[in-house]
């Protein structure tokens, strides 16, 4: 019994702390989805990542049931890991807190390519490099 998808909804929600408030309420409510159930399931599945914003894609079916998949972590999280940092710069433009090289950018670009809906790898690399710069991480090469 394959179910017909009537909507795909993409959100970024705080791990373990989603609520029926926007964007969850208006995004899912317009499809008649059981919001309380989504919030419960999302928070259960992301509780161990508290503090992170998690991208999630929700599929809504014709009978208004739903399921969801957690997408790859945000590029900023992957960049902090690659640069071995706890957090980005608080004074971007005045302070550089770390570095990433081309190979690291490509690796992250490949992970994020589909979720970002980037045109190609080069496009994804530009976006990841831009994200790095916006966090005060220097892009080498």
């Amino acid at each position, binding site marked *: 019994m394959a179910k017909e998808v009537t909507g795909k909804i993409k959100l970024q929600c705080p791990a373990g702390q989603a609520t029926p408030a926007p964007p969850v309420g208006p995004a899912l409510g317009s499809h008649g989805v059981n919001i309380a159930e989504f919030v419960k399931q999302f928070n259960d599945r992301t509780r161990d990542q508290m503090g992170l914003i998690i991208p999630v894609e929700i599929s809504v079916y014709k*009978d208004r049931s739903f399921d969801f998949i957690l997408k790859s972590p945000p590029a900023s999280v992957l960049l902090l890991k690659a640069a071995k940092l706890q957090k980005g710069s608080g004074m971007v433009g005045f302070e550089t807190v770390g570095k990433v090289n081309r190979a690291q950018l490509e690796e992250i670009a490949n992970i994020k390519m589909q979720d970002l809906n980037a045109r190609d790898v080069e496009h994804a690399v530009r976006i990841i490099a831009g994200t790095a710069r916006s966090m005060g991480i220097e892009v080498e090469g």
Partner: protein
Amino acid sequence: MIRWTEVRILVPQGWQELVAERVCAGPCTSAAFGRSSLAAEAVPEGFEMVRAFLPDRSDTPEVRAAIEDDLAQLAALTEAPELDGLRIEWRELPPEDYANSWKKSWKPFRVGRLLLLPPWKDWTPRADEVRLTIQPGGAFGSGRHATTRTCLRALSQRIAGGERVLDAGSGSGVLSVAAALLGAESCLGFDVDANAAFIADELAQDNGVASRCEFRGGDFGVLGPDDSSYDVVLANIYSDIIQAHAADLSERLAASGWFMFSGCPDRHAPETRAAIEAAGLRITEERPRGRWYTFIGRKADAGS
């Protein structure tokens, strides 16, 4: 009730995650991508719509200015000229109780003798009606799928009371629970999904038939030698599984029992029908609904 302001930003494709993160660093805590609803205007090609939300207590001129300033710097910070001039649209949303307003669209519905209703609805059943309470909309559906409705209707017509029921691919457990409510003596469901048994157990408990329903996680391997000679064998699953396991299902059906296999898209009906018949079963009734087929029948060597 909190009021919300929607912060809409049309972003060049690919940059939506970064823009959402920048906006969500402030009082907006999360973001949605894409149209606000299926009816809303489509986003232009090559762009994504980022929608973040500000609670009214944080929607001040200073906060708006801070978000606008942050986004104005983004092109320079990222060295991406396409992020220059991102325009923010502020929309004050009407007040709404989002925790409850979605419930409005979930109405009780009848299938045969069964009345399916969500837990928050109080409803007086008719004299001959059997009430099934189901939390709508989880991953396993809510009884509204065409194939589930067909199965529920057939159960409500055919369960006479006292049957032993096997439910392959039991999912939410709705068919087993319905069969138990209609009078089946016992129901055994199994499903390969790791969460299914837990959810089905809850459904059986909520409906007061937990003592007559058992749910196991796994495939046919979870059935033991005693799990045989069922009066009713149900399978509302993918048609390729019905085809592959028609013999397994047939083997567990009592000589005088009946089966119901559903979930078969019409384009796969011929090969599914053939597999059922090749497994020593005789189809006595076919119920098409929309583009789905349901097959009902008995053992080939059973009397009519």
